């Protein structure tokens, strides 16, 4: 969206009137809304009930009034998919919720998801003008979620308008956020879009990774259904590069391929005892429970190990999800072991806050160095190295260094390793001619998302090595734009 378009929307008469209806001072005097939440005591007993309950209509309208409707909205620059944030918020303020969601859907295909899982404090809300004014930022994420939920709960979800079919076929590999964003935009441009998914369910990390207490499957499913209504065809149980080859994709008539195959191999630390029973990746733990229904008492065949004393290694969102899931699986203690301090935790602020409320023990400035087995080969203890913060490293964060000779041994009958993943190796090894980085990611043009094979574009974790839902979506959108340009030549 160009600056002129943004300005034109801002200059519409209704909007000018709305701005004048309340002084900036009065807007500034309104307190930031508090999201209604289930109590920590109750929520650790339920897998599927969402911790955050969503804003009421009144709360949303009041929160929307806090937005100053700036002439040069910095929040938009903080959004990887460029949502016209002031326009949707002002529509909430005037209680035109249909127009609000329509505005969001022009650039985001998964608003109900993003409203829940984006790290807003590092993006839109982090650069909100109010932060500069020493006030709390507008709760943009909450409002986005409100608009999306309002539409879904009204039962009137509308598919965005699509251009007439242009007769060209494209496909996406994987059905996670980057592919979904890609598919939505290509469908809007008029392409016939097919999404191939290796697993049996559509949604990628939104389904197997993020637990339902943070992102209910029904919410994800509703957004996928919107894509279905736009004509996007989803095919599960197909592994591109294994079930069908690059050549077969062309024989099937596809003109362009978007690779959003995501994260693959979970990383481990290569320390003694890591292959003991009871030590597993967060991917395994969460997939068993979220995707396969293990441990949820509903007759699913897939088992999952339960622990009395669970240790989770890592400090990102996946570590928080694992720790909070373990609590819900009935663990007596859940200890999160992170090698830096609380200030460096990469997880969303809200997830850290929720985890602490739920009684997760944050054992920061510790790093596992060995796991010890019981007589059956199952882990029983974790040996931790005590760390301290040294000089800042390349990432700008102070790097953790071991405190010589200082270790601690804690009980652990289940250890969940959530220290990141390497890119999925299947496409990089199956498609000839791709340029692959040393980390195993597919190399693409920064703006075009085009790979060394001209009809193959890529985005999300397969390019970034580890990213957020919204960054992946931004990649999918950019890839769609540039593939459209490429195929229109």
């Amino acid at each position, binding site marked *: 969206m160009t600056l002129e378009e943004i300005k034109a929307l801002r200059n519409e008469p209704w909007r000018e009137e709305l701005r004048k209806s309340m002084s900036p001072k009065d807007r500034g005097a309104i307190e930031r809304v508090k999201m209604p939440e289930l109590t920590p005591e109750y929520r650790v007993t339920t897998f599927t009930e969402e911790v955050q309950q969503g804003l009421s209509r009144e709360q949303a309208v009041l929160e929307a009034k806090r937005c100053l409707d700036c002439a040069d909205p910095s929040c938009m620059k903080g959004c990887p998919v460029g949502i016209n944030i002031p326009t949707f918020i002002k529509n909430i303020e005037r209680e035109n919720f249909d127009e609000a969601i329509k505005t969001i859907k022009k650039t985001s295909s998964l608003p109900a998801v993003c409203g829940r899982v984006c790290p807003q404090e590092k993006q839109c809300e982090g650069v909100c003008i109010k932060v500069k004014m020493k006030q709390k930022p507008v709760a943009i994420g909450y409002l986005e979620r409100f608009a999306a939920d309002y539409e879904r709960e009204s039962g009137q979800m509308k598919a965005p308008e699509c251009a007439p079919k242009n007769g060209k076929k494209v496909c996406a590999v994987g059905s996670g956020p980057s592919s979904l964003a890609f598919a939505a935009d290509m469908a809007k441009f008029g392409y016939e879009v097919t999404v191939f998914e290796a697993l049996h369910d559509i949604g990628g990390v939104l389904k197997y990774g993020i637990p339902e207490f943070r992102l209910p499957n029904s919410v994800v499913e509703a957004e996928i259904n919107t894509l279905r209504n736009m004509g996007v065809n989803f095919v599960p149980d197909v*592994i591109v590069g294994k079930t*069908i080859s690059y050549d077969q994709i062309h024989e099937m008539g596809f003109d362009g391929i978007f690779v959003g195959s995501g994260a693959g191999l979970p990383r481990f630390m290569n320390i003694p005892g890591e292959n003991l029973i009871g030590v597993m990746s967060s991917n*395994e733990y969460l997939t068993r429970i979220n995707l*396969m229904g293990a441990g949820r008492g509903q007759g699913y065949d897939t088992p999952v190990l339960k622990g009395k004393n669970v240790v989770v290694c890592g400090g990102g969102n996946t570590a928080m999800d694992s720790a909070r899931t373990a609590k819900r699986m009935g663990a007596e203690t859940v200890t999160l072991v992170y090698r830096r301090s609380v200030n460096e935790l990469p997880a969303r602020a809200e997830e850290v806050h929720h985890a602490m409320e739920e009684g997760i023990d944050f054992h920061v400035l510790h790093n596992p160095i060995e796991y010890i087995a019981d007589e059956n080969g199952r882990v029983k203890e974790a040996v931790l190295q005590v760390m301290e913060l040294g000089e800042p490293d390349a990432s700008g964060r102070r790097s953790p260094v071991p405190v010589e000779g200082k270790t601690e041994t804690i009980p652990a009958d289940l250890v969940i390793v959530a220290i990141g993943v390497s890119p999925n190796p299947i496409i990089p090894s199956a498609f000839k001619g791709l340029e692959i980085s040393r980390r195993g990611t597919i190399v693409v043009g920064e703006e075009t998302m085009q790979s060394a094979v001209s009809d193959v574009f890529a985005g999300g974790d397969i390019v970034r090595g580890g990213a957020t839902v919204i960054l992946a979506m931004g990649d999918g959108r950019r890839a769609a734009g540039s593939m459209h340009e490429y195929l229109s030549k």
Partner: protein
Amino acid sequence: MFKIVSKKMFSEKVACFEVEAPLIAQSRKAGHFVIVRLDEKGERIPLTIADADTEKGTITLVVQAVGASSTRINALNVGDELADVVGPLGHATDIQKYGTVICCGGGVGVAPLLPIVKAMHEAGNRVIVVLAARTKDLIILEDEMHANSDEVLIMTDDGSYGQKGVITVGVEQVIQREHVDKCVCIGPTIMMKFVALLTKKYEVPTIVSLNTIMVDGTGMCGACRVTVGGKTKFVCVDGPEFDAAEVNFDEMMSRMRAYRAEETEAMNNLING
């Protein structure tokens, strides 16, 4: 959905299915496996492909009832459907003209051994098959093995068929009798461990195909990890075949027991409805 077009019981707990999966039938090679999920509640289980028919668009799977999902799969009949069959996964067997190749196995491992026997034989190798089982009734695919190899040795623990003795007895006889260039072994972990020890002694390069616990089968979960040559490998994407001499079988056997208590509970629930 993937339809079952034929079913044969090899023994009380082992069933052989032909399943419609045309894309996989076309792209699979000896050594590949698939992940199967019976229905909404089913587990994702890895099964090595025993055969394929590209004209009919089917693959052959041999399933041993061990847990709840595999027990329920084996209760299916012709015309029933599996919710999901995905693959082919893993690396295909490295088929070359080695010279003389022993292909040995036991249990349901004999099923995935068959395509390797065929491919090795077609590549011009002298192929000697050694099949082992507890008793005569548990020997499977003997005719198919005869049709695709130069010789078949049968070993049974109780001596009810072939020679009395374990698999290593048969393999050692062959190695002592003639020069062997390559050995392929697929069977229970303990069997592969002892074949590996034996062939290491005689310096016969040996490949084993590992059937560890998996969830997604595409490299995402790491449930299948094993130590090979001191390094952690993922059976699903790095395997399923590895150099037998390098595999830490003891660790693998321990990891295979990870869910024993849960499996027993699931089976009890299944039986008691």
